[in-house]
């Protein structure tokens, strides 16, 4: 269970991005956070991801405070943020650390299959379309099987996965089994 109580965030330049936010996400639940551009969605996800510390307030995951990046929390940023010097497969396998090579290869292939990009495994990020790059970023987050998956503005990529489906928060559940998913989207 992920819980935020009354958290805020003020950037060093004085911008108060968040104030008095509380929320609670149970296992298996999907939460979409909607709001206009600049309202603080990315900031909120950064706090949950442990990249920034909230002040005031705490982010609590399964009873323990999140004080930094956490192995149970996976993140897909608003931009793909792929490593340009790694191939698609290298990017997806980035977080698999010290696992044996054959295991890593199998996991990467499975993750790429889920986002429909197995055939792109060997290409450089510069050879991908914007939506493909975002799907690689999703695969990179899925491959470590995080319990909490944070998706920042994922809908363009998810639309690319399921062009026939109307876009909406429901699309955010793609590819997560037991993951609680925080998804958000900006103003259309």
């Amino acid at each position, binding site marked *: 269970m992920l819980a935020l109580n009354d958290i805020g965030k003020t950037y060093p330049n004085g911008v108060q991005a968040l104030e008095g936010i509380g929320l609670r996400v149970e296992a298996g639940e999907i939460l979409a956070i909607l709001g206009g551009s600049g309202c603080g969605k990315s900031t909120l996800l950064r706090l949950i991801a442990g*990249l920034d510390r909230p002040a005031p307030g705490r982010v609590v995951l399964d009873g323990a405070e999140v004080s930094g990046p956490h192995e149970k929390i996976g993140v897909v940023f608003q931009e793909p943020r792929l*490593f340009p*010097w790694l191939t698609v497969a290298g990017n997806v396998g980035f977080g698999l650390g010290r696992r044996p090579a054959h295991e890593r290869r199998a996991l990467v292939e499975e993750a790429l299959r889920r986002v429909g990009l197995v055939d792109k495994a060997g290409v450089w990020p510069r050879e991908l379309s914007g939506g493909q790059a975002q799907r690689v970023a999703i695969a990179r987050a899925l491959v470590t099987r995080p319990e909490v998956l944070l998706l920042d503005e994922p809908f363009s990529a998810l639309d690319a996965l399921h062009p026939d489906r109307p876009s909406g928060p429901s699309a955010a559940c793609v590819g997560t089994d037991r993951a609680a998913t925080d998804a958000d989207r900006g103003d259309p």
Partner: protein
Amino acid sequence: MVDTSLAAPRSVVRRLGGTGWALGLILPLGLGILWEAAVAVGLNSGRLLPPPSAVAGTLWSLWQGGVLADHALATLGRVGAGFGLGVAAGTLAGALTGYSRLASRLLDPSLQALRAIPSIAWVPLFILWFGIFETSKIVLIAVGVFFPVYLGLMAAIRSVDRRIVEVGRIYRLSGPAMVGRILLPAVLPAYVTALRSGLGLGWMFVVAAEFMGASEGLGYLLIDGQQLGKPGQIVAAIIAFALLGKATDSLLGWISAPFLRWEDGFARHH
């Protein structure tokens, strides 16, 4: 769906690109032939600037006696030693100041002050400290190589995209893993560029170092040619410098190319 109106100019550009190197030869070849002809018909004695055939003859006789190879190797050895020393020091200092704010506050002001000194101004001091033989020459070359490597690496580390570093943080990379898996590949293109400009300065400074007094080396051939009035030897040494400089630079580019295949810069598309 090729739009022919767009495809046409592009193919022209490509055709020009294919023969571009040949176009570049027209000017030097033409001037060489003109000069050769001028000397041949007696418009000029060619004593101060020998015609290409005479320069080629000098190069050939220097090469045949093994003299050119000996001098070139001596110079190459000095550049190699000075480059190695300068790169090692520049990499260490650049990595420290780029990575650590404290190291930067501590070291950078002094290094910037030293950089303001024209490096040739060190020559008298280096001769007093290290003597007139190899050490002072190598140190001078190393000083020349140091600054571009130091500045290039420091700036490259500082400008690594914070957003990419955050991905590393998400995967909880340790300090060394962050350096090895993210910072190193991210700074590599700029580092290679810094190495290449360092190498260029190394070749520049080896001439100054050999002017300090040397009994062998291409710089010695220059001085010797001047004192004995042999302009052919001077031009031959200059050509040898150009060839060696270009060859070593290409070697660096060739060694680094496999690591930079991922690059998506302006150069790739032009």
